[in-house]
């Protein structure tokens, strides 16, 4: 008999244990911040919380970390109107469209006054966060697509000016000749140092492609207003990539590993990186900051490039929305916060004032001018599907399964039924 009782007791206890996890008690003054797990390792969130608490006693914080690969299900939960956060940092603005359309987002317009007024922000970034004239997101981790070069390698190859700075290539042909000079092969013909490494990993594939298109022709849209997959520049860009890979001048490490290109740079396996500007700091910390230089993608100095931004959003069902907005502006856009991010990780925030202080640094000077001329990708309903199609088709091309012409044709064919109308 007693054995039976103890069995029931244990079962009961375990059920209670499990049950505790299920109930979360909502406190009126708690701010729940949800982001991918890496965010909390790079962003000084603890300090921001402490500073905020000093100004607003009684506020407590709850960090809710999403797995790094698992953003889509989180977005799904959000789209189902579940309470996921007071401040959500999970999405790019293009994903905000879906939520705004369903009425799941709160606008920041009421607090964007005074030193936070709309003209105090980098226009390119804030535009991406604007839907129907209202700001629904605040940039966080804004990045511009660019080339990042190793000055020491370039100098060996004779590609630098008198000051040891890399001379930007004027067009793809010149860039190609740069790669030929920068690439080092051993006696067996195996590449021991690549001229270029490009991040072609899913979402980055889209950024890389359209940054090339924007730099080469000054617009990512064709004459019908659709995303460009048909211009001669598009063909030239894909051709450049495929030829470079074929000749062993461009590393394909990103086809399997999202961090591959960075690691190529850190280990000296590549001389130029085509990714977002922020990597310049991360790589510089390993190989030496004095060896790093931001070099515009050919054409980008006049035509601009593509930028993207993660964004801070306030879900409609946030429990403390006003407090959340205050936290976002007062701490997560404070000078100290912005500078910590710029210096440690190279990540940009949106307020112009934050960047002014770093304007003399050549790296930030270039980034600033590129950011000014950058455009964001359009917000569309079937964005994720487009990313998937582009990634698959261009990867197939890089693996010499098909020609650039065929690749563009395949992409065009498959995106035809998708809803890629820009929502503004």
């Amino acid at each position, binding site marked *: 008999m007693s054995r039976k009782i103890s069995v029931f007791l244990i079962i009961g206890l375990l059920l209670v244990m499990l049950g505790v996890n299920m109930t979360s008690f909502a406190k009126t003054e708690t701010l729940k911040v949800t982001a991918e797990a890496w965010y909390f390792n790079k962003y000084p969130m603890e300090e921001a919380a402490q500073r905020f608490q000093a100004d607003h006693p009684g506020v407590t914080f709850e960090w809710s970390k999403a797995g790094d690969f698992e953003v*889509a*299900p989180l*977005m*799904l939960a959000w*789209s*189902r109107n579940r309470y996921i956060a007071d401040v959500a940092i999970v999405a790019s603005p293009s994903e905000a469209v*879906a939520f705004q*359309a*369903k009425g799941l987002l709160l606008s920041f317009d009421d607090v964007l006054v005074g030193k936070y007024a709309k003209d105090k922000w980098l226009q390119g970034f804030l535009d991406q966060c604007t839907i129907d004239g209202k700001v629904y997101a605040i940039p966080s981790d804004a990045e511009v697509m660019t080339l990042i070069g190793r000055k020491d390698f370039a100098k060996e190859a004779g590609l630098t000016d008198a000051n040891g700075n890399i001379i930007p290539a004027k067009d793809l042909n010149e860039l190609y000749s740069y790669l030929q000079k920068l690439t080092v092969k051993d006696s*067996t013909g*195996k590449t021991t140092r690549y001229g270029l490494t490009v991040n072609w990993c*899913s979402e980055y594939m889209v950024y890389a492609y359209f940054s090339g298109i924007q730099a080469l022709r000054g617009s990512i849209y064709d004459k019908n207003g659709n995303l460009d997959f048909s211009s001669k520049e598009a063909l030239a860009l894909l051709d450049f990539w495929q030829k470079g890979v074929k000749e062993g001048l461009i590393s*394909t*490490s990103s*086809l*399997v*590993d999202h961090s591959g290109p960075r690691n190529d740079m850190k*280990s000296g*396996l590549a001389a130029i990186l085509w990714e977002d500007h922020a990597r310049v700091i991360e790589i510089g910390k390993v190989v030496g900051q004095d060896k790093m230089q931001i070099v515009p993608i050919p054409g980008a100095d006049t035509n601009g490039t593509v930028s993207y931004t993660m964004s801070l959003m306030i879900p409609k069902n946030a429990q403390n929305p006003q407090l959340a907005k205050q936290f976002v502006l007062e701490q997560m856009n404070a000078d100290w916060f912005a500078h910590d991010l710029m210096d440690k990780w190279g990540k940009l925030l949106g307020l112009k004032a934050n960047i002014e202080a770093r304007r003399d640094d050549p790296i930030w000077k270039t980034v600033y001018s590129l950011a000014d001329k950058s455009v964001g990708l359009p917000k569309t*309903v*079937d964005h*994720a*599907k487009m990313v*998937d*199609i582009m*990634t*698959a*088709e*261009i*990867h*197939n*091309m*890089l*693996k010499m*399964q098909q020609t650039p012409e065929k690749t563009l044709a*395949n992409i065009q064919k*498959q995106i035809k039924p998708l809803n890629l109308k820009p929502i503004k």
Partner: protein
Amino acid sequence: MVKRDPRKRNNFIVSWLFVLPAVLLMGAFLLYPLLSALRISFSEYNFVYSEKPVFNGLTNYIKLFQDPHFLVAFKNTIYYTLVFFPLFMLIALCLALLLNSKVKGNGIFQTAILLPIVVPLSLAGIMFTWIFSQDFGILNHLLANVLHLPNLQRFWLGDTQTAMNSLIAVGLWKYTGFGIILFLSGLKAISSDIYEVAKVDGVNSWQNLFYITLPNLKGSFSLVGIWGIIQAIKVYDQVVVMTNGGPGTSTLVLYLYAWKNAFSFFNMGIGEAIAFFTAALAIIISVVFKFVLKPEKG
């Protein structure tokens, strides 16, 4: 219909009390989902934008066969199965024969060879990603610097020709142990009398293998075979962790494409249609396999 006999009624109630917990669980989490899955597969249902599933007949299934990526996923799954299956059978059988012979260290061998059974496939995926790494991976290092065969070095997960085969290798590493266990139990079931008789007749080991052991394992072949094929069709974990379908579409498999449609593109209808297609494929193949290898009782 109605039971008047109180004893019968009592038996009915007591019996149902016994099965009730299981029936409730299976009803709520298997039967209801199954029916709802069927409905979704015949519906247009974007989880983010649609209010509720809208019936659209066979549209999802028709769309599938016009989607080049689905056809690629289907082809890749078949390829995975065709390569995985014979290797799985062969390796499992050989190692089972090895572990069945009473040699010193048999217990240790068995522990070592069966250990992958408890290693989650996703974690095995991380381990092998590192081993297959182009520059810092042990495999390329061994090929070049220990075996002095630098020509065999590959960008294992980054080349369309090797990516799928690398994933198959991980699947084999993980699953062969299961096959070994099934074969071992088949081997143990063969009466030792048969071997004793053969010994008297002066039969050698090879003859033993081909004329006694293998024919008597027919039941095990069918069992292991179906099990292996199902595992191959279900391939998912290591694909997500190691290549996520890439490079290009070279490792895109049915399970992954169903998942992507449902949880990346939020198109639940298409995702469920792929799921049912996969289920049909699994069932048809196992029925055919059973038919071909009709195991004799005993």
